[in-house]
């Protein structure tokens, strides 16, 4: 079964072509361009290396949030379009779960972090036994200090992954962190494909029309605080 997976939820744009869990090709771009201009040419070039057509793909996968507003929409719209045109199934996976899959081989606590601005992160928590991931915390938006408090409760080393790596690392005071090399820090469409394969086996795929995104915005309380600060600044 061939899977075409994309991730444009953050700074990098990534597209991967996989067959039965094996990676055929992955294309990742980090050039600050809008993903709307890069994603389709990337997909086209991946397919052309294998003389494949969109119709040859069995499942389209996308990281459907959280992430950047336009990025998440571009990824989802692209996959919806491809699935609609070819009449094939698609699946949206959590951006955070896909990030954690970058480290699936890595025993211990894995904490994906994405920069949600203003000292906030999109985050979740997983434990890996070196083979499979177990989710310990749902996808959430919270202050870095709050995440620090939650993680430090575990009393063990935590590995951060994602584009919030730098801001989170410098914002932590209590949690013991394990260093993660740059190479596996960013969104990878192959990881999206791996999660998608798991979802496929659990029969959780959907049609293009059913595919939804999840922006996971910071909580109402956070928004109200911002509102108060705005009022105070005005007065």
């Amino acid at each position: 079964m061939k899977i075409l997976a994309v991730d444009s939820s953050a700074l990098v744009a990534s597209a991967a072509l996989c067959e039965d869990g094996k990676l055929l090709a992955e294309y990742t771009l980090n050039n600050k361009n809008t993903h709307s201009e890069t994603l389709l040419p990337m997909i086209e070039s991946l397919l052309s290396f294998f003389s494949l057509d969109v119709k040859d793909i069995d499942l389209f996968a996308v990281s459907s949030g959280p992430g950047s507003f336009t990025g998440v929409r571009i990824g989802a719209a692209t996959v919806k379009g491809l699935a609609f045109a070819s009449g094939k199934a698609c699946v949206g996976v959590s951006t955070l779960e896909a990030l954690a899959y970058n480290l699936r081989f890595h025993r211990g606590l894995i904490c994906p972090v994405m920069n949600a601005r203003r000292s906030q992160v999109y985050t979740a928590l997983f434990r890996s036994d070196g083979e499979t991931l177990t989710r310990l915390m749902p996808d959430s938006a919270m202050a870095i200090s709050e995440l620090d408090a939650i993680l430090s409760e575990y009393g063990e080393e935590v590995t951060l992954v994602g584009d919030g790596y730098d801001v989170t690392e410098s914002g932590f005071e209590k949690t013991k962190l394990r260093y993660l090399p740059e190479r596996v820090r960013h969104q990878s469409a192959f990881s999206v494909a791996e999660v998608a394969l798991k979802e496929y086996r659990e029969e959780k795929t959907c049609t293009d029309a059913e595919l939804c995104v999840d922006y996971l915005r910071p909580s109402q309380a956070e928004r109200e605080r911002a509102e108060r600060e705005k009022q105070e600044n005005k007065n």
Partner: protein
Amino acid sequence: MTFPANLVTNSAEQTEALGATLAEAIAADSSLPRFIALYGDLGVGKTAFVRGFTSLFSPNARVKSPTFALVNEYKGEKISVFHFDMYRINDEDELYSIGFYDYLDRNGVCLTEWSENITFALPDRHIAVNIEKCPEEHPDRRTITITLLQPEAQYRARKD
């Protein structure tokens, strides 16, 4: 250009020229923040300032107030200009859903009109441009203050 700069212009053309001067300063010094918060009442010349600013990076751009679109993109050869109008922005959700935070990561300069509405989201380091009208006998005269804002610690580190 040194900061803070206190200047007086006597026409929209001069305000525009001042925008171009700030653009030159930013093009010449990559350590300057690429975020400019504009403040000033209706018709004071914010868009004229942006027009002058944009002329350096995107000479053929037709600069208009993004009142309806909320953001105009002026493509430059190397650096683009993103021109926001925050007049109708009320909260962080609205800011997020116009893709504001995504623009901060792109290779460009952001200018925001009606920055009063998004003080909660302004980057720690940015340039503030205040444009004010003068007493009635000089209807076209403006006093313009350009300030470089940055956290105290960073400021000291840069001076040392």
